[in-house]
């Protein structure tokens, strides 16, 4: 075998090996999607979106309360987590100098890698115990603790990409620091910041562990924000480990709906970002 043939063989082998590895990486996702599509679609029906769960032994019913509950929890997480996340990111990028942002960024990175169940216990200790019962508020708080560091670091990163000459253009007109941030820097980074918020919401939408100790579950419509609420991840966890086929089917349906929700948020964030890129190109 001469050198040239040898090189061709090596090339061919390596391209096959790397392609297989790439395939291996996405295989679990394909399996999950495939399973969900097959099992979930067959279990989905109109009642799933409109009806409350039925007691053990009866068939039928739906998860309308869990869908609404998940929406409530995400809304609360956004209300608690987004404003401090964005403002904190602004501080790090615009005011912080060097030392403080370094430590805050480090802490945020650590917080991101804290297991979510630990955050659930934390929320249990600081919200559920003083209140004396589980609640949507506690669940939203737990999710916001997960969301916050993601939004902070993401906001900071996008604001840092706003070019210096844009800030200087505003300062040169006599605008103050805060005015420049509000009217020029944040609008320039806004699409990136929004994308980050959406991705963080998508990330916490599927969190189950923090909800076990906080929002817990509710078989009915929650009577208020300070009452326990149901949520899709909790229902999947709860129904999937039951002994009833009908519940298993509903768990599949819930998983499919949850995945569709996350996918929707992801696509939305890509669209937001794509518009930003288009604007950049036009510039």
């Amino acid at each position: 075998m001469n050198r040239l043939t040898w090189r061709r063989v090596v090339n061919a082998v390596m391209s096959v090996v790397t392609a297989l590895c790439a395939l291996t990486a996405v295989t679990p996702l394909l399996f999950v999607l495939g399973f969900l599509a097959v099992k979930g679609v067959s279990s989905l029906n109109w009642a799933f979106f409109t009806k409350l769960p039925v007691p053990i032994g009866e068939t039928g019913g739906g998860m309308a309360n869990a869908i609404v509950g998940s929406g409530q929890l995400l809304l609360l997480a956004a209300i608690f987590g987004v404003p401090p996340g964005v403002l904190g990111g602004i501080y790090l990028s615009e005011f912080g100098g060097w030392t403080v942002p370094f430590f805050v960024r480090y802490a945020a990175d650590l917080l991101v890698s804290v297991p979510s169940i630990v955050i659930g216990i934390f929320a249990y200790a600081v919200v559920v115990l003083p209140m004396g019962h589980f609640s949507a508020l506690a669940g939203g708080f737990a999710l916001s603790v997960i969301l916050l560091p993601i939004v902070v670091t993401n906001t900071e990163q996008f604001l840092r990409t706003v070019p210096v000459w844009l800030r200087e253009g505003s300062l040169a007109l006599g605008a103050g620091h805060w005015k420049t941030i509000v009217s020029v820097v944040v609008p320039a980074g806004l699409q990136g910041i929004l994308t980050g918020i959406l991705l963080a919401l998508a990330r916490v939408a599927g969190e189950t562990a923090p909800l076990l100790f906080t929002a817990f579950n509710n078989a009915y419509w929650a009577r208020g924000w300070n009452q326990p609420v149901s949520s899709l991840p909790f229902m999947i966890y709860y129904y999937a480990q039951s002994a009833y086929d009908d519940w298993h089917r509903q768990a599949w349906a819930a998983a499919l709906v949850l995945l569709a929700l996350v996918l929707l948020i992801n696509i939305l964030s890509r669209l937001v970002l794509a518009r930003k890129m288009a604007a950049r190109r036009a510039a």
Partner: protein
Amino acid sequence: MIPSTAAKVKKVTEPSDPQTAHEAAKETARELEPARADASIKIRARNVNFYYGHKQVLEGISMDIRERKITALIGPSGCGKTTFLRILNRMYETVKHARPEGEVALDQDNIFDLALPNLRRRVGMVFQKPNPFPKSIFDNVAYGPRVHGLAHGSKLVELVEQSLRAAALWDEVKDSLQKSAFSLSGGQQQRLSIARALAIDPEVLLLDEPCSALDPISTAKIEELLFSIEGRCTLVIVTHNMAQAARVADYTGFFLMGKLIEFNDTKTIFTNPAKKETEDYITGRFG
């Protein structure tokens, strides 16, 4: 051009060793008095040094910038011309550990004593790269007037139109004022930056290589524009392009390694420079 005072102006820039620079500055300040008859001095810089941390980047710059004239600052990269420009509206303050020394007066006011919004209201700046804000064309121009509370409602609309006209952009954008400023071409964006700067009616407009990112046709439009606004404010332009300095400027200062080597009316600088370095630079022997 004011050849009669050229010789005197030139003296400002006689190489002065740092110890005696201050004395020399006082001396030349007195000598320069009669020049006011021709064109009064808008900015008077005396013995200006500038440091980034411990690194000195400007040394003993003394310069009189005349009112409603175009002054060009030329010199090779890193010679300090942009740094000097950024002292005039204190833009250097965005950089940490940047420190000026010396005196710079805008009319009778020490610029280092003025409140920053006031100084920058009076001394505008146009940057090397067109830098439209992520807003509509209208809101870009209205930005400065809104910051300073200069005009509202129909007055503001009028002011925006005037500014766009002054920047020779009105006819191209009058039907698309609500469109994003990013939809404009590079040359249009730079004229928008100029319109935006003119909207707060500055006394001085600093231009930091305003054409370096533009094609020749856009450059010609900007140069044309400079002549038309010369009557309303004092212009200081940093340029790499010597032909541009020769075309547009009434006065030209040549910077080299942080010093002002020579400052005179443009014709003298380009036809009869007093210093060897100036001659070498403008004839393209280096730079």
